[in-house]
């Protein structure tokens, strides 16, 4: 009833946790059996270990938050040596590997290392992190740069490659089409909107890096619109991300065209949200007369 499929891999349900809000699963596995998830995308991983940006890295917003973590992660080797073996003890399903990079080569190298790990189902290429200088966002806002990253990653791996797009663009469909043409097997969207807050007491930006990535329930209508547009523009599957926190929103994203969804910021303030959304889905489906979730994918485009 909840089953869906992403790039040839069956998901028990469409609900995944989004990268950067679920670590490598440890913290949540202490709270509930994370095997209830469809899957999750692990913290954006780079070639070298990174501390990330200076703090404060978090600012509160109405219906959301700004983060400027800056891809803090232990580096791909440590992820393979320490995190994945631990993950194997708490999660039986395929996990999505989210990767970041500062050059086309780095993306390809990280992807190649992770491609060898059986636990990994998909490689999600984050070409859209607003929180790293030298690259990052540029890959996410220029179709040619995005295509070159995706092509290099595709050449380096055998697993399905999902391009994760930034919402900070004039025309999201151009980015999606460029990635599809470069060989992407799927598109996930959106990453965070570039945002800012200023502290009235200090009269300076709250975030040490001045700006950061804005996400949470506030961005849902913008994310939904982009999922709808991209579903029309490409043939590959779409993963819907942005502001999701309820079973109703999962259904709305799927009607817009998502075959699976990711929940990000909501995990941070309600650590049980993914489990609860999965629990609530059957009841909400009944309410709206939905028998099979996968049958509604893109349903809002009919007629």
């Amino acid at each position, binding site marked *: 009833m909840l089953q869906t499929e992403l790039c040839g891999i069956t998901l028990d349900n469409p609900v995944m946790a989004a990268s950067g809000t679920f670590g490598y699963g440890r913290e949540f596995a*202490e709270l509930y059996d994370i095997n209830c998830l469809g899957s999750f995308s692990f913290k954006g991983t780079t070639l070298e270990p990174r501390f*990330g940006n200076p703090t404060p890295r978090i600012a*509160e*917003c109405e*219906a959301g938050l700004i*983060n400027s*973590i800056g891809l*803090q992660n232990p580096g791909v080797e440590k992820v393979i040596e320490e995190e994945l073996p631990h993950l194997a003890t708490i999660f039986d399903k395929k996990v999505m590997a989210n990767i970041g990079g500062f050059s086309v080569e780095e993306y390809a190298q990280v992807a190649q290392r992770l491609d060898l790990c059986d636990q990994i189902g998909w490689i999600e290429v984050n070409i859209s992190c607003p929180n790293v200088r030298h690259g990052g966002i540029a890959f996410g806002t220029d179709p040619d740069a995005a295509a070159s990253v995706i092509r290099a990653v595709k050449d380096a791996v055998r697993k399905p490659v999902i391009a994760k797009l930034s919402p900070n663009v004039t025309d999201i469909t151009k980015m999606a089409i460029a990635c599809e043409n470069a060989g992407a097997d799927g598109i996930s969207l959106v990453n965070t909107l570039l945002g800012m807050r200023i502290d009235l007491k200090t009269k300076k930006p*709250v975030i040490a890096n001045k700006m950061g990535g804005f996400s949470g329930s506030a961005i849902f209508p913008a994310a939904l619109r982009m999922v709808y547009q991209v579903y029309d523009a490409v043939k590959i599957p779409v993963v819907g991300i942005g502001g999701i926190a309820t079973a109703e929103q999962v259904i709305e994203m799927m009607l817009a065209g998502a075959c699976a969804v990711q929940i990000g910021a909501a995990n941070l303030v309600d*650590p049980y949200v993914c489990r609860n959304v999965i629990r609530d889905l059957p009841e909400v489906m009944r309410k709206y007369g939905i028998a099979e979730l996968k049958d509604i994918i893109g349903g809002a485009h009919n007629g």
Partner: protein
Amino acid sequence: MMREIEFTILENKPITDDICKMVLECSAGEHGITAPGQFINIKIDGLFLRRPISICDWTETTVTVIYKVVGKGTELLKTYEPGRQLNALSALGNGFAPARAGKRPLLIGGGVGVPPLYGLCRNLIEAGARPTVILGFNTEREVFYKEEFEKLGAEVLVATADGSMGQKGFVTDALRNIKEPATFFYTCGPEPMLKALDKALAEGLEGEMSFEERMGCGFGACMGCSCETRYGAKRICKDGPVLERSEILW
């Protein structure tokens, strides 16, 4: 281990002009507190992020917190009436290690850094130690919990910036008034105070310092609160808020 709790507010009232004390009720042992210096992360209706507040003290079925009204969240929290439910994640962070205290531990708290030392102090005294407590405030009007510490049986020294009570100056100035040398120290307060203490305290003295940072999750998932230490990156919320003096990079 962290859990989500629907506390019932038993008490929520000002103890100074802008500091409130709140007592929360849960079922026996539900709060999961394992050490003083841990904190809870409070959901406030209408705000996206939770608010982290240190545990001041606890019993089987209650948790006491003390908070200063500084912004939107604490302003709302102040309006919550006894009887109301309060959702919080508990108990978060590593907390202090009372076992390291020795006979004559020194506890140093500044402003809203004072509350977590109270539960610690009670623990230490119950375990037979004889703590000295230094409390730093701006002025007499802002002093709170002095008598509570004294009632526990601790020796309490107060420093106020304007000299309106106790030693004039900062907690570092009050350090001079200590009679016996400390066996260990615990401290919590604004970062400049912690830094000044690190300079002022005898170099060989071991101790623990509790830090604050803006938090996304409060339970280790988002890397929002990271700091660099001598032993690599640590999350203030999960690997802290209490850090070992020797590992801190100033």
